């Protein structure tokens, strides 16, 4: 992707609303960070307008400057950042260089914030009620226990007065986010900045929270500046969408129109790659009777020799029970995986979908023989893996390889890329030094990375590049099955699309079988042949992707499908 093409034109479409003054107006904003390598221009030229009561979404990938621009509006740039140029007008007042005192006045009761990660944004040593109370007190509002309880219950927390006496770690993720929303809205600010408020949550919870946020903000008349990387979500929830790329606003306009007629090349690519939108398009296409073949990532089934069993991996009644230690001598059983059975056909992609706590990762670990099942069988290529002795187990490992979620954690920072990819070959004593080097070069080609990457270290690579290295490493032993445990969940949308394409290509060329673990149904739609839906350790539904998506049998599956953002958008069934 060439940089110049992105900067070729900037399309901004502003709505001219009557005589109302914009609540927030950002003009020509430039923000610089002072780093050890000199000044970095994080935001170069941002324009943005939010009218009172309006919801505006800023969409972009990591590094686009969307969070930075929004944080500048509330004066929360990190220590080494400063506004280099431009204006931030809040209700006509330029607050880009306002004094700290003025900002403290504005924060809370004029401009509120709901931050992204609910766990790290609440102080773990103070009770929830205390943290709400201090917000009310600091902004001059009544802060008695009833006031605190009222704020919390309005945000959707049941049993608020009891909950107020609890600590953050005693809340679930969804409850914590509600608490943060409660705090953000407690003083009824005129503008609420919501920084990826739901990206850390499960998809069903996400929906509830966003619905509730909509309700509250429309009741209070609060304008919302919603920051997100998910274009589908942005289009669904916001009146206006602003697209940022590399520190600049490249396009903005009313949400639906932007989706239907994206003008900037970058916007076009985003629209094409967003899984939620793609999924929606497929859905729409199906509704309109159009075949969905071209819309899917290519997955041609490999011609299989009949001598080999068609089911390369079979799981029967797999169960895993964990013992949680209680008091002295007591322990309770926690069933993470409850009698799960499914089969994976050679050369296909089977997805296991579920929310956090559903047991899908535990299943993956048992299949990889990293965790011992409490009961049940795992049959690989006709052989029960629990009967393998250590030598055979070693050979088994060559044929089944993992790719994990966190591209930053799965590569050893002390090893250079060559060593990382070579390691499996060395462990299994394959080939000579020279042949191994040749193989590493081949693998790098296969994952579309330059061979010079061999000498570099993980910290020099981006997330997407690291995940490609993880893929290369997984391929080193020429496995038959690759277990992808949330392999693309931590990647930006465009990179995610590239990696998924790569995986699809490899499947074509090498006849690989994938077991794909994910929480994102939208991704499943694009790449999986079969789907298994798990809830709380049990397998609730299984079938081909089409079947499950078109005719879900279980209510839970339906709920998951409904929760895909952008589900209510009216999109044309064309591929952009």
């Amino acid at each position: 992707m060439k940089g110049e093409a992105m900067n070729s034109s900037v399309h901004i479409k502003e709505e001219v609303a009557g005589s109302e003054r914009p609540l927030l107006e950002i003009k020509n904003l430039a923000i610089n960070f002072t780093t050890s390598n000199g000044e970095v221009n994080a935001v170069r030229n941002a324009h943005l307008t939010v009218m009172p009561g309006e919801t505006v979404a800023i969409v972009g990938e990591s590094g686009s400057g969307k969070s930075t621009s929004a944080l500048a509006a509330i004066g929360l740039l990190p220590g080494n950042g400063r506004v280099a140029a431009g204006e931030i007008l809040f209700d006509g007042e330029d607050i880009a260089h306002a004094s700290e005192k003025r900002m403290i006045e504005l924060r809370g009761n004029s401009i509120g914030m709901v931050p992204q990660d609910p766990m790290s944004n609440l102080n773990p040593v103070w009770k929830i009620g205390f943290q709400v109370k201090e917000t009310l007190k600091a902004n001059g509002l009544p802060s008695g226990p009833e006031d605190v309880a009222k704020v919390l219950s309005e945000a959707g927390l049941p049993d608020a007065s009891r909950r107020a006496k609890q600590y953050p770690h005693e809340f679930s993720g969804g409850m914590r986010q509600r608490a943060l929303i409660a705090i953000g809205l407690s003083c009824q600010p005129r503008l609420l900045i919501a920084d990826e408020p739901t990206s850390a949550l499960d998809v069903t919870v996400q929906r509830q929270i966003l619905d509730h946020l909509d309700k509250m903000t429309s009741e209070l008349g609060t304008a919302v500046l919603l920051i997100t990387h998910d274009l589908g979500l942005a289009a669904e929830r916001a009146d206006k969408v602003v697209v940022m790329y590399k520190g600049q606003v490249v396009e903005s306009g009313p949400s639906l129109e932007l989706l239907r007629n994206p003008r900037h090349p970058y916007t076009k690519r985003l629209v094409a790659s967003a899984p939620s939108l793609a999924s929606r398009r497929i859905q729409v296409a199906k509704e309109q009777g159009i075949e969905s073949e071209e819309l899917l990532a290519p997955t041609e089934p490999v011609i299989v020799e009949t001598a080999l069993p068609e089911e390369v991996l079979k799981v029967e009644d797999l169960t895993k029970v964990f013992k949680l230690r209680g008091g002295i001598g007591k322990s309770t059983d926690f069933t993470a995986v409850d009698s799960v059975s499914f089969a994976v056909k050679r050369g296909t992609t089977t997805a296991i979908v579920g929310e956090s706590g559903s047991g899908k990762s535990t299943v993956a670990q048992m299949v990889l023989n990293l965790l011992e099942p409490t009961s049940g069988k795992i049959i690989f290529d006709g052989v029960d893996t629990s009967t393998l002795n250590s030598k055979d187990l070693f050979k088994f490992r060559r044929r089944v390889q993992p790719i994990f979620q966190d591209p930053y954690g799965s590569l050893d920072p002390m090893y250079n890329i060559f060593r990382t990819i070579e390691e499996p070959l060395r462990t299994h004593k394959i080939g000579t030094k020279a042949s191994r080097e040749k193989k590493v070069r081949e693998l790098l080609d296969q994952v579309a990375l330059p061979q010079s990457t061999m000498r570099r270290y993980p910290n020099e690579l981006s997330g997407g590049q690291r995940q490609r290295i993880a893929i290369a490493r997984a391929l080193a032993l020429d496995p038959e099955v690759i277990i992808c445990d949330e392999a693309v969940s931590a990647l930006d949308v465009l990179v995610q699309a590239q990696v998924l394409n790569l995986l699809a290509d490899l499947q074509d060329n090498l006849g690989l079988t994938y077991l794909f673990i994910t929480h994102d149904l939208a991704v499943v739609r694009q790449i999986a042949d079969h789907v298994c839906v798990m809830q709380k350790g049990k397998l609730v539904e299984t079938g081909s992707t089409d079947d499950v998506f078109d005719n879900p049998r279980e209510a839970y599956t339906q709920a998951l499908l409904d929760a895909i953002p952008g589900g209510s958008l009216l999109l044309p069934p064309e591929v952009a």
Partner: protein
Amino acid sequence: MATYILKRFLQLIPVFLGATLLVYFLVFSLPGDPIAALFGDKPVNEAVAAKLRAQYNLDQPFIVQYLLYLKSIFTFDLGQDFSGRPIAAVLGEVFPVTARLAVMALIFEAVFGIAFGLIAGLRKGKFFDGTVLIASLIVIGIPIFVLGFILQFFIGVQLGWAKPTVSAAAPVQDLILPAIVLGLASFAYVLRLTRTSVIENMNADYVRTATAKGLSRFRVVNVHILRNSLIPVVTFLGADLGTLMGGAIVTEGIFNVPGVGNRLYRAVLSGEGPTVVSIVTVLVLIYCLSNLLVDLLYAWLDPRIRYDS
């Protein structure tokens, strides 16, 4: 929580028995005859020596001496030291003094260490931070007896701001200078620990959220940054109390504080088994209790920590 505390107290018993046995054995195996040494350079009067040995059970085998000592503990009669004084009385005299000294040192290191560490962390990289870091390195690097003598000489003798040695009753004002000397090295640690903790927590997400709520800077620092940063510091301080109690020997010597360190040192040199064991046992118990206190404090400070379930 109550069962946890009970469990910890029960654990003290084997610790106590083990410590006393070990110390008794060590003192017993020191070479030299303590009774003969009582006579100094003068001729040893054998009859008298025999009588003294019998009086202190020194003519018995080691294990008998140890059991007799244990028996004496349970009857609360800890025996006598070589000058005939009941050891319980000796302990009653020296421990309160050292306790005063240790608590004062602890207060000094806590208050100043945390305050300076907080400021240094908040102003990381600036002048105050740099100065404080270098100063703390110097303090940690210079041995305590050098610091003690220097301060005693300049502040006590030259400037006359404080008495160079502590007067008989060891009142609090006399103990200020010794407490500062005793607490100096720990003060430097507390300072650095607080500073690191503050720097880590300063950039925490919840601090940003707290600011976003509209809280004043003062409140953000005290309620959010400082409170969370205190957790590792408090655990250090708790453990330090035990160390200060037992380790004040050098400071007590320099300032002539009539405390545990001096008495213990003399008892070791003259081979007074029961005295050494009694003092060391009390120190061990104090150390265990202060550790328990620290663990409980830790759970109170950080609600994520629970000792049962």
